[in-house]
Every structure is written in structure tokens, then in C-alpha cells.
């Protein structure tokens, strides 16, 4: 039975797939002939830019946290981003890991108003934050939906480099050309950025609701670093790398110990395997 039916079933599925292939090829042929591509080019496929490389001290398997930079990055969040973006997975006491003292964390927490739900009265009352509280939710009423930033460097292709490129990548759409010299509005005259959105080639669909958030000297760094837009973007990208995975550096350190042990154990295992099989041809 199997041997009789098998080939027919095989031919059935194979012909079904080839039938779809043939139909697809007929449908695609005109597009291919016109553009030399299977899909017609769109503004996104031609003008979207991949993030520029960004080097951070936490990069690579030997990376460490640059606590001064993380504190500067927190200052950017605290002065700029928090107006619209929450940081809900991070608690204030976590900030001790980037070099703030207990007293400093207490002081920072106090500047935030944290809502608490009272089950007895059914009311929500806000109170000064305590070190054990998480960063509070942000009520946002404007256009767009600002994402929570705790995990943003893990939730976007390109991670910290994407954050940095996005924050520094706003451009004037009029006359914008890509690296090949193609001009956006000449190729696609119909896709002018709508009112209330902002042109940014690093954003997936090129038009982002967030206005350019950073300006020179938007924050005053306590360590005296000059607060340029690029510096602020780098610092906040570094800070958000930490918020996304505070255990990153520890993970790498543990990893080296684990690999060292395993390498030793594997060499021993190899030698005992050699010894045991020495007398036995196989």
C-alpha cells in the first residue's frame, strides 16, 4: 500500500508546489522585467538606512560598564526622555549598580511621583518614589505611542547603535539624498512626511512621531563633559544597553570561567577516551 500510494502522494504535493511556482512566476514576470527586482522599489526599501556602528565600553566578551557614561546617560533620560518614555522594568535601587550611592538613589527616587493603588478605597494616590519602586508609568497624550525604554536596545535590530543613529539621524526631507545620490522626493514625490511626523531615515518607515529630542546642552553633565547631541545620544544608548540587561558584564565574566572549566574537562575527557580506546581498533 505504502509503496503504491507513496509516489502518488509525493507527486501530488510536488505538483502543487510547482503549480504555485508557475503561477507565481507568471505574476512576477512583469515586475521583474520592469525593475530587475521581484518587488517594485518603495521609499522604505531604497531610503531606509542601517544604523551606523557605535563603539561602547561594554561591547564584546571582555567589555565592562563605563559608569561615568552610564550616569551621563541616566541624566539624559532623567532630563529629556522621561517626559514621554517609561522605564518600567528598572527600579531606583538598580541605579546603585551604575555607581550612585544609597543616599543619591533615595534623592533621585524622591523626584519621581509613583502611583500606588489602594485596594481598600479603590483610589490611586501618588507618592514620592522609594528606592524599591520601579520607574513609574508615563501618561502620554500626544501623537504616537512612545515605547517603554527598559528593553529598547534588545527590542530593536541594531540595539544601541540603532538608538544612537535614530537620535542623531533626523534630516530635512527636502533635497534628501541617500548614499547612492538618489533624491527621495524626486523618486517618490508622493511620500512627503505628514504633518506632526518627522523624517528620519533610520526609522523603519522613515517618518517618526517623536520630534528631534536632543539639543546641544539639553543636560548639564556633572563631570564636565561637553553635552553635544552626539555625546548625549551615545550616553543614553550606553545607559539603555545597561537597562536592557544589567547582568551583561557579569554574564561575560561567568562565561569565561565556565568555558575555562569546560575546556579543561573536555581535554581530560579526550585523554581518557584515547587511553580507553588505545588497545582497540575501531
Amino acid at each position: 500500500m505504502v509503496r503504491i500510494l507513496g509516489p502518488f502522494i509525493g507527486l501530488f504535493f510536488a505538483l502543487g508546489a510547482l503549480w504555485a511556482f508557475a503561477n507565481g512566476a507568471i505574476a512576477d514576470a512583469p515586475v521583474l522585467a520592469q525593475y530587475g527586482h521581484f518587488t517594485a522599489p518603495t521609499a522604505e526599501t531604497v531610503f531606509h538606512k542601517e544604523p551606523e556602528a557605535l563603539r561602547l565600553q561594554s561591547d564584546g566578551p571582555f567589555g565592562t560598564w563605563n559608569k561615568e557614561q552610564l550616569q551621563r546617560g541616566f541624566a539624559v533620560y532623567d532630563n529629556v526622555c522621561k517626559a514621554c518614555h517609561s522605564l518600567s522594568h528598572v527600579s531606583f535601587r538598580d541605579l546603585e549598580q551604575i555607581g550612585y550611592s544609597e543616599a543619591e538613589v533615595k534623592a533621585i527616587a524622591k523626584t519621581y511621583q509613583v502611583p500606588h493603588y489602594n485596594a481598600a478605597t479603590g483610589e490611586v494616590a501618588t507618592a514620592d518614589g522609594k528606592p524599591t519602586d520601579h520607574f513609574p508609568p508615563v501618561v502620554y497624550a500626544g501623537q504616537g505611542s512612545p515605547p517603554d525604554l527598559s528593553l529598547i536596545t534588545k527590542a530593536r535590530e541594531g540595539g544601541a547603535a540603532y538608538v544612537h543613529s535614530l537620535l542623531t539621524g533626523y534630516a530635512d526631507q527636502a533635497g534628501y539624498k541617500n548614499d547612492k545620490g538618489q533624491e527621495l522626493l524626486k523618486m517618490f514625490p508622493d511620500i512627503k512626511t505628514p504633518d506632526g511626523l518627522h523624517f528620519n531615515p533610520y526609522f523603519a518607515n522613515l517618518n517618526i512621531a517623536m520630534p528631534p529630542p536632543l539639543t546641544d546642552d539639553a543636560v548639564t553633565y556633572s563631570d564636565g563633559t561637553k553635552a553635544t547631541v552626539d555625546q548625549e545620544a551615545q550616553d543614553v544608548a550606553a545607559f539603555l544597553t545597561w537597562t536592557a540587561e544589567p547582568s551583561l558584564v557579569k554574564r561575560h565574566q561567568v562565561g569565561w570561567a565556565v568555558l575555562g572549566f569546560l575546556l579543561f574537562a573536555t581535554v581530560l575527557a579526550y585523554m581518557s577516551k584515547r587511553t580507553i580506546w588505545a588497545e582497540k581498533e575501531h
Partner: protein
Amino acid sequence: MSFPWANEYKPSHPLMQWLDEKLPLPRFVYNAIGAGYPVPRNLSYWYNFGVLAGVCLVLQIITGVVLAMHYAADSTVAFNSTEHIMRDVNWGWMLRYMHANGASAFFVVIYVHIFRGFLFGSYKAPREMIWLLGVVIFLLMMATAFMGYVLPWGQMSFWGAQVITGLFSAIPIVGDALHTWLLGGFAPGQAALNRFFSLHFLLPFVIVGAVILHIWALHIPGSTNPTGVEVKSESDTVPFHPYYTAKDGFGLGVFLLVYCAIVYFAPNMLGHPDNYIPANPMQTPAEIVPEWYFWPFYAILRSFTFDFFFIPAKLMGVMAMFASILVWFFLPWLDTSPVRSTKYRPLLRKFIWFGLLPCVIVLGYCGGSPAHEPFVMAAQIATAYYFLHFLVILPVVSLIERPEPLPFSITESVLGKDEHAVLGQGN
């Protein structure tokens, strides 16, 4: 059953003798994976992957049980509880990365293990039952992995669940009702998440049961070997312990080195960034991609873009996807060649290495790529080959192929001569 020359368990310590009389568990282990199990002497490193699969299963159960102590299967807090594990639970990040990458490692190992079966004809008589149980285990693994990926309740979790459970609605007449019944709603939600968690906890133990049957069935004819020639005499075998415990120990070390390098240095390499965004039923991701180990099957599903006669494209895709695995059940009867190992089957060997393997790689690549050309067209050709390979090429090759001469025995293939052959014994 075992070979008559198998070592016998002889406990010397009075306590072990006492235990052997009351409950011969040590004897059982001794005969299963100890010195009492004679194994062909010529097993290559291809044969390490069965033990590695067992290690993966244990690793997944241990990490999974601990993760379940900290996870909450509630759609409002599931995402946050996963981040709670990553941030607040002691070594929680390590457990979660071990578990998530452990699933990938399990599939890598199991795919090599299955491919080993294709190469050396492990599915052929008298080992059909081992093979059938293996396919059952693979299906259970797929279900378990799919439901596990839903639990963090990120965007890919939610939308992956939406797409995969949606497949059931392609079934004529009962499809929609079945879909709603399976999910406990019209779309993935609290009911689906909670039952997926329950089943994700249950199925690994069902897999353990199936693995025990798989190994039990293995011990009746004994392991195959790269020559495919059955064991004929004592000189063909070595005791499992210490020979293969040592070889498996080394293999395990190499495996753990690779696995830990990924867990500690690139734990998100195989994941999708979108799954760090909480599930949002109102916002579809740009591309819905399952985990890499489902890509070949996902590509087969998406290959059927046009109705085939009166059969809707979607139903065709769903049938093909399930058929692509179900066809493995029939392998022992589709392959009629008297020769087991492709080492001596020149034609089938070429079709496996230059047909099936590239075909599955193309399917995998296309399944992980966006659903547009040229990926769909490449997947369609590969899908056609996939079905032809198992259902047409394999039976035909079995009939027309002229196998190369087999060695008399394993001993002869290893030593170049076998005294049993000279004496005319062992047949």
C-alpha cells in the same frame, strides 16, 4: 534481549546484592548503558547525538522546572514575570538563557540525530519501532517548543501563536470550531496562554516516557553502525561502558563548549528582537517569523500560494507541512533496499548529500526570510524536491541502485580480516 556474550551484572558489595534481589535497578542501568550492553566497535561521532539529545532533555527539564517557580502564566504579567526572572531572580538570567538556547541546542542535536538515521539506514528493519518512536518524540518536541515560545508573551510569541493555531482553521467544515476550542477563544489570550503553560510543563514528561520506549526498543536489536552490517560475533562489539561512556563524555564536553559559548556570549543570537516587545494584539509585526528550527516546515507551509484544482492554497500548505513530517513514519517501507548504510549505496548517498541536504537548507533559509520573491519561488522548488525525494526518488533508487560490496562483518571492516569469516562461522 542482548547478545549472549554480554557481561553479566555481578554485585560484590552485600548492599548491592541485597538491592539486586529486591529491586534490580542497578542491574537495569548496567544492562542499558553500562558494561552489560555490547555495542558495535565502529561507531563514529555521528552516534554521539542520541546521548546528547538525552542530556538536552534533562537540561531543559531542570532549568524549566526552576523557571516555572518564578513565571506567572497570566497574560497581563507574563512578560513582566519573564523580565523579573532576568533581573531579580538570583541567576535567573542564566536559567532563562540556558532554557531558551537549550531548545535550539536540542533541535540542532536532534536534526543531526535524524540525519544520522537517513545516512546509515537506521530506520530499516528490524529497527522500525525505534524510528517510529523517534518521529513521535520529534512531533512532541515541536509542540513543546512552540508552546514554550509563546510563554514570554512578547510580540513574536503572540503572533506566532496566532499564525500557527490559525492553521487549524484551514481544515474544512470543523476548522473554525476546532480553532476556537483549541485556543479557548477567537484569538490567543489568557485561556490560550494558561493552557499552553500547562501543556508545556506536561509534554516534556511525555517525551521522557517516549524516550524510555525509544531506548527500550533500541536494546532489542542493538545499535546500528556505519557499515550497516549486523553484529555477528563478540569481536564486533565492545561494552558500552567504558568505551562509549568515554567517547560520549568527550562529545558532551565539545557540545557544552559550543552551547555555553552561545548562552554566555550570544544568548539572543537565535531569538527575534520583537519578542522583547510585550504582546500587542492591535499591532502586527512587520514579519512574523517562527524560531529557526521551524523554518523549513514554515517554508513548506508558505510555498502553496495558489489553489491546486479545488483545494484552497492554505489547506494545501497545512496538509503539506504536516505531511512533510508524517512521511518519515513510512520511511522503513518506502526504502526497500536490502543494504542499510549509504556508505555502500552510491546513488542514494548522492541524493542525500546533494539533494535532500541542500533542499532542507534552502527551505530553512527561505522560511526565515520575508514572504516575497525570490524566497517563495526557491522554497516552492525545494518543497517539490522534498516530497519527491522521500516518496518517489527513495523507492525508485532502492529498486534500481547497485550497492557496493559489503564487508563480511564489522570486525572485517575495522581490522581488514575476520577469523569467523575464514572459518565460515557467524552466518
